């Protein structure tokens, strides 16, 4: 009878091992790749030069050659939103709404007719841009109000890229 005790223990251990081997379940595996975006602006400012008051649709210099472009590296569709502050001079101001902007995958396709008025709050210039579209060209047109005081004006424009 005493010889049976170790056998009993062996049987219990065997059962445990048997159950362990039997429970080899399927493991489902998932992962999510994070979205990221890199925007490298090939320009930091735009200079329109001297313009006449009352003139409209003044195009930014050298725009047709594609000097105002951004290289986008991302792994998801993206969009561009733009907002700015009013044009300020030493003594006078005028509205940011006089500036319009277009964005396109080709510099030659930039057109004033497609441009969007830049406001003080973010305005979407282009949306759901395919993530393989890079570089990305910008176009600017500026109106000068009639009788605008003669001095140097400047503005800050914020360009916000985001994945959608």
């Amino acid at each position, binding site marked *: 009878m005493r010889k049976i005790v170790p056998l009993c223990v062996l049987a219990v251990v065997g059962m445990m091992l048997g159950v362990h081997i039997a429970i080899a379940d399927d493991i489902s595996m998932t992962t999510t790749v994070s979205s990221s975006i890199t925007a490298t602006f090939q320009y930091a400012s735009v200079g*329109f030069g001297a313009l006449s008051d009352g003139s409209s649709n003044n195009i930014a210099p050298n725009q047709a050659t594609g000097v105002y472009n951004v290289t986008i590296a991302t792994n998801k569709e993206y969009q561009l939103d733009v907002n700015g502050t009013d044009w300020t001079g030493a003594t006078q101001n005028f509205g940011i709404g006089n500036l319009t902007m277009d964005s396109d995958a080709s510099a030659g396709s930039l057109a004033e007719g497609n441009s969007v008025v830049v406001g003080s709050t973010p305005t979407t210039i282009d949306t759901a841009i395919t993530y393989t579209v890079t570089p990305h060209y910008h176009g600017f047109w500026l109106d000068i109000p009639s009788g605008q005081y003669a001095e140097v004006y400047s503005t800050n424009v914020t360009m916000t890229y985001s994945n959608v």
Partner: protein
Amino acid sequence: MRSVYIGLCFLICLALSMSLAYAQQMGIGVEPTIVDIYLSKDNDRTYLPIRVWNPSNQDMVFKLSIEENLRDYVQYDCLGYYWCEKDEYYVPAYTEKHEATEVSVLFVKKTDEEAEFESAIYVQGRPTEQPEGMIILTPRIMIRTTIHQTATPTTTTTVYTGSAESSSSIEIPDATTTTTMPDVLLDGETIISPATTTTTIESEEIVPQQSGMNPFFIVGVIVIVVVSAVVIYVWKEGLLFILPFLMFIMMSGMGYAYNVPMNVTVIETPAPIQPYQLATGIFPVIIIAGLFLWFLRGLEEITFERLVGSLLTVIIAIALVGILAGLI
């Protein structure tokens, strides 16, 4: 005279190429750009690591800002490791994604009420050399953020470190960041150390992780040990008819021990034992038990009828459990 013209042309070309080469760039890279933040009673604080880099030819200074509706959910730490409104981050030129600077934003649960809303975090850059012109550009990347605050504990992603049936995460270098961060106080009692955990950035949720011994595993092991001791005792005393029932109890213990991992993160209710698991688990037990009892046939203290009865009792008990589990 001709050589003078050639020389002039060369100088003009050189000047043009130099001006093009030194065109001022502005670069800004951000990851992630879409995140969900989950806050609940159990996860009342969580941090969001944001990686920033600058591939342009100009050194840049980055600054974070948040939407107004996010203000109450962000804890500012102007002295420590997390983002503060005053913080500016200098990022040198020509840095790539793998050389990114990491900025962490600490989110806290604001109220006990449910809340779900969209918001945004902005990473804004400016070159260290201020450009001059009529239009000065400010590049900015928006991180779309959704806050999910639940009043009751939420189901969270569980990453098992042991073998277990569960959904698990694999690491992709760009999608996963292992960070060295200070301890985070959870519920005023539990301290997690992100330095020892791997944070998997799921686009849908980011939760702090907590490791520890699973109590269900301990219970299972205790049951096995206790029942093994009782089996030896009843065998010595000749109380064989109890053996089938003890086997049944031990199986339950093994079910806990093997189906529940030893170490878990964010302990939730363990996955219930599925009927098919029970079936595959008990099959070798039946075989082993049958062989065991068959071996005992030759002993004079035990009759063959009694052994068959014991075996049948085991099979019936297992079948009943299987049926019940299936019904549940």
